[in-house]
């Protein structure tokens, strides 16, 4: 993320805004609702509040205009339909928000979605400059998408919090506000170096290793020393979070992601057609309501599915669960306990995560050869 030069910001947390006019493209109620929702994106993650004010005393003025549209110095004219859809001034210059009236403003994804553009412009009004991350709300390009799925990227959250700090609720008892925003407060404070940390799922993906927990994932790349933290929804908007298990079949360039009784196949971040499918279609019995962990063994071309104290072995070539399964985890993986939270094959070794520990397991000799903290991958 980037802030404007000298990082100007509003000196107070309770801000007011006013719509100077309305676009004829949409009913007034829809415009007001879109604007309210756009402010909420930012108030959910900061101590800021936004109230509709009246008269000229409002802090932030919102205007629909075409071509040359204001008397404000250095306010460039709009360019007609398409092209530039809006612009806004930094807090140092009044935070004005201007939306190009020549666009076809809508409340859905057909024309130019007002909520989406307003949320971006409000980011500028609050002090954020453009981000280079294409998934970030503050990326300059307007990418048409389902407005219901427009969310702040972690980069946006970090940017705005660098100016105003986190929401006050995040500093309190850690209870979620119930918002669908990715900034669920309990999750924001996930500390990767907490010695008690456990993971929901771990997998390889195109040479990287992904660690999933709640709504986050951490990417460990062999080429980079830093660990990248992302919202899962930034890659797979339909999944959001709460992933139970994941595994990659490298030779098919496919990642399988499990959540409850469903699973998805994805190539990179593109969910494949026909998914989600039921885990029971794989041959997992109906009594199983979720998969705790999954790992593909490149040597045998078999996938292990762990659930509760049992596990199954799935033949990826012939697509069936082998006859002798389920097996008992405690019996076939002695030394790791009876449940597995996450599993990974890395450099030919099998790593089974259980709570805050990970067990390196020698499949041939059927014994644990090393025990480490689950977060040993991060150089904590």
């Amino acid at each position, binding site marked *: 993320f980037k802030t404007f030069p000298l990082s100007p910001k509003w000196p107070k947390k309770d801000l007011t805004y006013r719509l100077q006019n309305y676009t004829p493209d949409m009913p007034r109620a829809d415009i007001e609702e879109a604007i309210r929702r756009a402010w909420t994106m930012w108030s959910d993650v900061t101590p800021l509040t936004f109230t509709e004010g009246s008269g000229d005393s409002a802090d932030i003025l919102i205007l629909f205009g075409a071509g040359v549209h204001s008397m404000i110095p250095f306010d460039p004219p*709009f360019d007609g339909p398409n092209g530039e859809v*809006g612009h806004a001034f930094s807090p140092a210059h009044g935070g004005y928000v201007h939306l190009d009236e020549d666009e076809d403003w809508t409340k859905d994804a057909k024309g130019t979605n007002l909520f989406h*553009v307003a949320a971006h412009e409000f980011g500028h009004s609050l002090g954020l400059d*453009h981000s280079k991350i*294409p998934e970030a709300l503050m990326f300059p390009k*307007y990418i048409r998408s389902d407005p219901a799925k427009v969310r702040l990227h972690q980069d946006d959250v970090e940017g705005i919090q660098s100016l105003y700090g986190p929401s006050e609720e995040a500093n309190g008892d850690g209870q979620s506000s119930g918002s669908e925003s990715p900034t669920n407060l309990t999750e924001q404070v996930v500390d990767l170096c907490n010695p008690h940390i456990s993971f929901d799922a771990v997998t390889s993906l195109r040479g990287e290793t992904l660690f999933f927990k709640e709504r986050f994932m951490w990417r460990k790349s062999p080429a980079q020393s830093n660990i990248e933290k992302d919202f899962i929804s930034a890659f797979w908007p339909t999944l959001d979070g709460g992933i139970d298990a994941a595994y990659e079949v490298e030779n098919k360039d496919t990642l399988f992601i499990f959540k409850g009784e469903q699973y998805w196949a994805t190539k990179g971040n593109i969910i494949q057609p026909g998914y989600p499918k039921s885990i029971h279609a794989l041959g997992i019995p109906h009594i199983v309501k979720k998969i705790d962990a999954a790992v593909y063994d490149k040597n045998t071309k078999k996938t292990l599915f762990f659930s509760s104290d049992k596990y199954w072995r799935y033949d990826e070539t012939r697509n069936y669960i082998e006859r002798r399964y389920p097996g008992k985890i405690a019996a076939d993986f002695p030394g790791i306990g009876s449940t597995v939270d996450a599993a990974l094959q890395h450099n030919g070794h099998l790593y089974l995560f259980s709570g805050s520990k990970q067990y390196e397991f020698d499949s041939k000799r059927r014994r644990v050869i090393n025990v480490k903290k689950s977060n040993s991958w991060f150089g904590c």
Partner: protein
Amino acid sequence: LPILPQTEEVTAEDMQLAQKYLNSYYPEQEGTPVIRTRQDKIDANKLRQMQEFFGLKVTGKLDASTLEEMKAPRCGVPDIAG
């Protein structure tokens, strides 16, 4: 048939669009010596900046993917501070 280099496929209209785009969103930064470019030329440095910002292949040339990005709807705030 041999494929023409992409730069030769750029129309005068595209060239104008690109110049306007770069002037609007990649303005001269304070302290940068202003080197005037000919009307029919694109400032390759600015173009590189833009390509880098959008994660495109940084060539300094006005290729098809760069033009496509330039034609997409966007916010009017410059990508680099002027």
